[in-house]
Each structure stands twice: as structure tokens, then as C-alpha cells.
């Protein structure tokens, strides 16, 4: 009885086009946002369970938010535009390192021209956003081959970006400001005078980024551009025949996706890690993001969140459980078991619902609407 749309009439298209046409969904989202923006910080400040320690905030919520953001970006490209990319990690890296360079000041001596380009250190917010833009630029460049290369071939081709940028940030000392170890430190997180330092501040910062970008992404994907992406994804030839320019659609998808992924990369580096090396953005990260998107549901913003939560939290849980239960197994065995269980879980989920949690949720809702009748 709780979940019924009966009695909710839509008198105009605007209402029908709302993010959640069914009122209960909208209310649920409102509650969620309130909890996220007010409840969590409040509990954390008061150190109320489960926020007794920083662990939940630092090690779960913070990475969850940032990776969810990256997953949204990946989802735009893979889920909405159908261009499989194994290079998201590289674009996170581009976002992170560009933001780092911009925040610490850029100096490019062009000796042969006798001049030098010098940009003074920019504010952190500007650096992060510009980092995203830089990622978008490279995203476009690496998106160009997608006009010819399709499907899994494209996936492997995007690995070129992944490995190339891994190498660049490892071997070109300019990007790390000649840090001898190749590991760089994030600048001070100064947002208009507020210095973000405590876990709660970091959390709120990321939450704001995520909320704003998620809403904009949602608007994009349900608007004209989003429809073009999906058309290209579902059948590129037909899309072209109804007047969609593949060049435009694919490159905008690459740009939007890389921008979001790049911003996520900058946040990951600045806000979460604080100090990082290229390995933080390796191929494993790309694969993780792809997992999040697929398990969450291709072509679903909501799904990106669920997917990120799953991929991030399940291994942690698997890690915690034996310790809590006091299972008398060697650490080695436990770790291997975790691998096995996590792998099996992924396979199980894919079999159970190849279209991910988003689909499970929508089936659930449909059932709920029909309840108590099975069909």
C-alpha cells in the first residue's frame, strides 16, 4: 500500500519528466540527501555509533563518494554512450596531476622561443575544475579513435591511454615537480578561506561535488544529448541515419565522462589520498570502475552509486568478517578465500541480473507496485 502511484496524476509534461515521477521516490531521495548532508556530519561530530571513530567517514564514505563520482563519469561513456573504456584510471590520473600542477604553479620554459609560460598557483577549487577540463581535453583526443574502432577492440585500444599516462606520470618528472621519489603531496585544501582538513569537512566537500555533478549528469542524460548518446550506444548506424553526428555524440560523451572522472581523480588525490603516486590510478582502478558501472547498472546514475558501494564495501566486509568471527584460518587462506568469494559474488550477480542493481531495483519497484499480486 505504501508504494502506489494511484492518485498521483500528472497534469503536465514537466511533472511527468521529473527525475522521479512517482512521489514516494522523490521523498526517499529527499530523506537520503538530508541524512547525507545533515545527519551524517551531526552524528560524526557527536561521535555517535557508527561514527565512533573516523573509520566509516575516512575509509568508507569518502572513497565511496569519490569513486561513485568516477563511476558516474565512466557510466556516461560506457553505460550511456556504449564506448567501453578501460582507461578511466588514466583520466583520473590526468585530473589529479593537472590539478596538482595548477595548484602548485605551472612553469613551462619554451627555450627555443625564448619565452616561458608561467601560471601562478591557482586556488584549489579552480585547479580541481580545470583538472577535470584537462582530462576532458585528453578524453576527446583519445575518443577520436572511437569513430572507427568499436566494442571490445575499442576497450583494448583505450588501454593505450591507460598505459601511456601511467608511464608519463611515472617518467616525466615535470608532473611531480621533480619530487625525487615520484610521490607528490596535495596542496592545502583552501576553499575560499576555509581550510578543509577534518574528515567531516572532507566528506562534506566531496558530497557537494558529487551531488551537484550527479544532478547535472542526470539532466544531461535525460536530455537531448543523453538521448543522442544512448542512440549511438544502441545502434550507431541507425542513429547516424536519423541525423545524429557520431563525431559530436561520441566526443561529447568522452568529454563529459572524462571531465567527471578527472574531477573525481583530483578529489581522490587531494582529498582522500593526500599523497600519491601513479600506481593509485593503475589499470586496476579502471577495472574497478568498470565493475562498479556494470554491477550497478549500465546507463543508470543511481546504479553508479550502488555499484561503487558494492565494489568498495564488499571486499572490506569480507576482510572484516573473519576477524570479527575469529575464524581460525591463516591470514593467507583468508585472503585467498576473499578473492574467491568476491569473484564468485561478481559472477553470481552478473548471472542473476546482467543489467545490474539498477535493474534489480526497478524490478523490485514493479513488484512492489503490483503487490500483493505476483504479476
Amino acid at each position, binding site marked *: 500500500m505504501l508504494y502506489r502511484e494511484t492518485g498521483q496524476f500528472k497534469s503536465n509534461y514537466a511533472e511527468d519528466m521529473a527525475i522521479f515521477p512517482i512521489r514516494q521516490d522523490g521523498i526517499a531521495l529527499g530523506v537520503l540527501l538530508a541524512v547525507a548532508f545533515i545527519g551524517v556530519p551531526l552524528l560524526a561530530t557527536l561521535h555517535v555509533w557508527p561514527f565512533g571513530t573516523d573509520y566509516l567517514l575516512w575509509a568508507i564514505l569518502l572513497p565511496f563518494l569519490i569513486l561513485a563520482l568516477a563511476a558516474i563519469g565512466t557510466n556516461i561513456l560506457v553505460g550511456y554512450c556504449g564506448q567501453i573504456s578501460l582507461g578511466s584510471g588514466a583520466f583520473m590520473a590526468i585530473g589529479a596531476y593537472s590539478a596538482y600542477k595548477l595548484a602548485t604553479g605551472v612553469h613551462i620554459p619554451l627555450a627555443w622561443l625564448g619565452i616561458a609560460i608561467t601560471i601562478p598557483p591557482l586556488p584549489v577549487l579552480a585547479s580541481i575544475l580545470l583538472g577535470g577540463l584537462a582530462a576532458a581535453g585528453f578524453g576527446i583526443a583519445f575518443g577520436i579513435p572511437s569513430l572507427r574502432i568499436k566494442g571490445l577492440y575499442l576497450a583494448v585500444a583505450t588501454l593505450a591511454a591507460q598505459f601511456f599516462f601511467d608511464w608519463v606520470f611515472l617518467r616525466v618528472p615535470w608532473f611531480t615537480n621533480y619530487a625525487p621519489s615520484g610521490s607528490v603531496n596535495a596542496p592545502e585544501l583552501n576553499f575560499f578561506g576555509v581550510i578543509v582538513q577534518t574528515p567531516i569537512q572532507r566528506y562534506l566537500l566531496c558530497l557537494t561535488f558529487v551531488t551537484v555533478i550527479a544532478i547535472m549528469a542526470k539532466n544531461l542524460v535525460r536530455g537531448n544529448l543523453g538521448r543522442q548518446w544512448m542512440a549511438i550506444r544502441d545502434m550507431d548506424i541507425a542513429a547516424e541515419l*536519423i541525423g545524429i553526428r557520431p563525431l559530436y555524440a561520441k566526443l561529447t560523451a568522452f568529454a563529459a565522462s572524462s571531465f567527471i572522472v578527472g574531477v573525481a581523480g583530483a578529489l581522490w588525490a587531494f582529498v582522500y589520498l593526500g599523497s600519491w603516486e601513479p600506481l593509485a590510478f593503475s589499470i586496476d582502478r579502471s577495472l574497478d570502475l568498470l565493475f562498479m558501472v556494470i554491477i550497478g547498472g549500465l546507463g543508470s546514475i543511481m546504479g553508479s552509486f550502488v555499484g561503487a558501494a558494492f565494489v568498495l564495501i564488499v571486499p572490506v566486509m569480507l576482510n572484516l568478517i573473519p576477524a570479527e568471527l575469529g575464524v581460525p584460518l591463516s591470514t593467507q587462506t583468508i585472503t585467498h578465500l576473499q578473492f574467491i568469494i568476491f569473484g564468485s559474488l561478481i559472477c553470481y550477480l552478473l548471472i542473476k541480473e546482467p543489467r545490474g542493481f539498477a535493474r534489480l531495483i526497478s524490478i523490485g519497484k514493479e513488484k512492489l507496485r503490483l503487490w500483493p499480486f505476483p504479476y
Partner: protein
Amino acid sequence: MRAPDTSEILLQVEGVSLAFGGVKALREVSFNIKKGEIRAIIGPNGAGKTSMLNVINGFYHPNHGAITFKGRTRARMQPFEAARGGIARTFQNVALFKGMSALDNIMTGRVLKVRRGVLWQMLRYGPALKEEIEHRHRVEEIIDFLEIEAIRKVPVARLPYGLQKRVELGRALAMEPDLLLLDEPMAGMNLEEKEDMSRFIIDVNNHYGTTIALIEHDMAVVMDLSDRVAVLDHGVKIADGTPDEVKSNQTVIDAYLGVAH
């Protein structure tokens, strides 16, 4: 009621040839489509009908020959340019966007009409929202017209074949084209549905003045609906004329119809 404007030629196909390796799909085919008419193209399987449509909207580039559309002659163009010029089409093997709802599929037909830029779309506020609603309005009209209100929000992959064809027509209509190319729009439909579809085609033609090129194997439909019929066989045009002329043409009967209808 309807009097096709015989004077104005909308599309002229001139000596088009198309070959794939050894296969000659089209050989020196010439014909024209006049503004406002319903033009049928028929012929046996593999005659080159679909290829002809593909040439017209730029998916295939002819080896020889030229296409003149609205007075502009082109040897090759890109499909999206054709779409911009006002050519819309449906496909023989339904080519809907499988992951989207019927409504969204039809909305994609409006892609070329959207004026607000990406930033506006991202905000989805004010003018952007207003524009989106306008398009939605147009699309709802088409949905009404095609009587598919009930399946608006259903992902098209779930729809039965016949309804998919209807959605596809809706998508083409949403483009408000000057020339509508229909590739076997009635395959896989039963009589009642064919009647409906005929009704839609005639209405589109009457109300919006859309010119229609139609490929169909159901002779009854072709004969009833079309103003002129071109017949292809093995890539060659073997006849061209009014339905009655074609129907009684012996070459056509031998090559295609089998028994006189």
C-alpha cells in the same frame, strides 16, 4: 482530396550503380519522386530495394550516378547530412534503440530540432526546460496519432515486433521530414494492423504533405496506397508507372508477382 503536385520533383536518382565486390546491387537506376506523392519500390528479394534507400540517404555511396534532392545534386553525402536535409526513414530489420523506452526513441527523432546548448541542458531550467516540454508535446501528438500511448514508457526491446515498427515510424515522423523512406513497414503485421498502418501513411501524406517512398511486398497495400510504382529486379529498373500499369506489365509478372493479382 489529394492531388499530388506533379510539377515539382523532390528527388531525382540519375544512373545510380552500386556494387559490392562482384555483386551488382544496382545498375544504372534512374527514377524520381515527386513532391507529395506516395512512391512504391517493389521487386523480388535481393533486387536492390533496400540498397536504393541506403543510397538515397547516404549510407551507401554509389559507384556511379548522382542524386538530386530539393534541387541540390550530390554524389556522396553523409547520412546525418541527409537527415538534416529532411530525409527520414524506417528500416527493414527494425533499428530501434533497444535500451530506451518508446517515448525516448521517438524523442531522438527531435534531435535535430533542439536549439538549446549543452550547458542549458545540463541545468534543465527555464528556457531549456520549456524547449524540452515543447518537444515532448510534439512527440505526444505523434504517440496519440499512432495510438501507442499505453507503451510510452516501455523499453522497446520488450515490445512485440509490430509495435516496434510503429515506434520506428513514430521516430521518423518526429523528424518532420520532407521525404519519408519506409522499408517494409508492414512486414509481420496482420491485416488489422496493416490497415492501421496504411491509415497512418495516408494521414501523414495528407496532413503533413510528407512525400513517401515505400518498399513493401504486400501487393494489395502497394497497389492501394501508391501513386506510382518502380520495379527493380537484379538491380535493374524493369518497370515504372502507375499501379495499374505495373500490375499488368508482363516483365513484372514474370520477375516478381508470379500470378497476376
